[in-house]
């Protein structure tokens, strides 16, 4: 559960996988961001996508980036860069994202490939002197600052991988496997959070560790 082999069942002799399909989730997120840009009349052929990763070589970052690249192809976007955000330390991540934005004024999209990078998007955009919506930003996970960023308009959307379901189905599938031999692959994630209603639901259930 939680993180599959980059080659799925081919690369790992697992029974089944219960968790987010990282590539599909990233693809869904990217399409949401690119549609937002299209609605604003931005010329996507000249757009630049910056993807910040805490650990650029890690499996999660590579697979999520591949989903975004697939969506970019469909929308005719060719310019992109994967940024090494320098690990999980928030000040370091924020400093690097901000410096990148200042050094790359051509940036149209800023996407956090992991939770910390996404959490720091709003602070980085503010520090770089950007207005809400000036750079179209999004990412993964639903940390308090990410949700606050969506409310303020700095972040367009984030992906909730719905970990509760990963834990719930993992136990349930083991039970079914033991009883009937079932080994289903279950995609629990890819829930796009991009509206006040969805945020309200997450904020309500978060203290109970459900969302």
């Amino acid at each position, binding site marked *: 559960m939680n993180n599959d082999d980059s080659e799925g069942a081919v690369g790992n002799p697992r029974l089944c996988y219960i968790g987010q399909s990282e590539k599909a989730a990233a693809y869904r997120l990217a399409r949401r961001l690119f549609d937002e840009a299209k609605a604003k009349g931005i010329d996507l052929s000249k757009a630049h996508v910056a993807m910040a990763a805490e650990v650029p070589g890690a499996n999660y970052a590579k697979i999520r980036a591949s989903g975004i690249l697939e969506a970019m192809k469909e929308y005719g976007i060719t310019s992109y860069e994967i940024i090494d955000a320098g690990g999980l330390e928030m*000040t370091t991540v924020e400093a690097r994202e901000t410096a990148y934005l200042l*050094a790359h004024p051509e940036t149209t999209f800023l996407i956090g490939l992991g939770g910390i990078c996404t959490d720091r998007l709003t602070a980085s955009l503010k520090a770089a002197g950007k207005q809400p919506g000036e750079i179209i930003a999004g990412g993964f996970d639903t940390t308090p600052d990410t949700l606050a960023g969506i409310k303020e308009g700095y972040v367009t959307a984030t992906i909730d991988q719905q970990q509760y379901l990963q834990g719930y189905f993992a136990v349930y599938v083991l039970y079914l496997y033991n009883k009937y031999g079932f080994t289903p692959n279950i995609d629990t994630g890819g829930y796009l959070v991009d509206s006040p209603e969805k945020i309200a639901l997450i904020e309500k259930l978060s203290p109970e560790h459900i969302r």
Partner: protein
Amino acid sequence: MNDGRMSLGRKLLLSRSSSVLIVLVVLVLGFAILSPEHRFVDPDNLKVLLSLGSEFSIIALGVGLLMVCGEFDLSVGSILVFCSFVFLRLFEAQVPLFFVALTTILVGAALGIINGLITVRAQIPSFVTTLGTMMMWRGLALLFSGGEQKGCDVSTVPSRYFLPFFTGRIGGVFPAQAFWFIVFAVFLGILLHYHRFGNWIYATGDNRDAARAMGINTDLVKTVCFMIVGVLCGFVACAQIARTACFTSRAGEGWELKAVAASVVGGTSLRGGVGSMVGIFIGALTISVIENGLVVMRIPYFWTYVVFGLVILFSVLSSMYIEKKQREAHR
């Protein structure tokens, strides 16, 4: 040639701080001239460099002071995160903000004292002591917080002075964090260079047995230096959590070696007894400038580590060269 006959220019050139300053000036000029549209010196970038870079740099000042005293502290990142957790818990308990900050700083001081007492009482190398406490404080912060990231928005509590004190802009421009970095550097500089306690630090770091023979309580000196590092970690924990409005169990991760690197770049000897606050200040600034400058220069970030390595090696080699020249000048 004796020291009295050396020209002022030569004296300056043969000071350890000067080689660090040369490195910093070259880096700043290089980044300013070569960065696209000179964005390195863009006011927005300088504000980011000064505000975010100062959080780490404040801690580096303490680590440098401790190294002059002949000791290491690898637990700074873990003290920082533990202090952040204390801040979070007190904030959640609705304790008045300035009392939260004061308690957080006192906890930092206590953790520093623990490092000091274990090191001097048990005669354990501080490298080992703080390696242990590094894991312990980080582990406890993870254990108590469940590894979760938690919101801690201090702006929700009405306080006219708290946020400006830690994260405000002086005159609407100059980041408060950079102001505190300078204030701490000046205070520690006076302590190290113009106060009797500073002489004790140098004596303890240079030759502990000789310092003891002179009547210096070296255990106390070392413990106080550890405590100063803890106080700075507690202060930065307050500033960081006030700015980010959240607690994360990864705060300060990786800062321990960067702080040592800043001190070494600043001309502080790993063997103790040698170093200056000016050098440590410039060393910390240099590390922040490299991190920021390479991104602004659009150089792939992996180069940062290569540049860090080169700057550290250059600093150590130039310090060795300066030491050799100083010895020759004194003959």
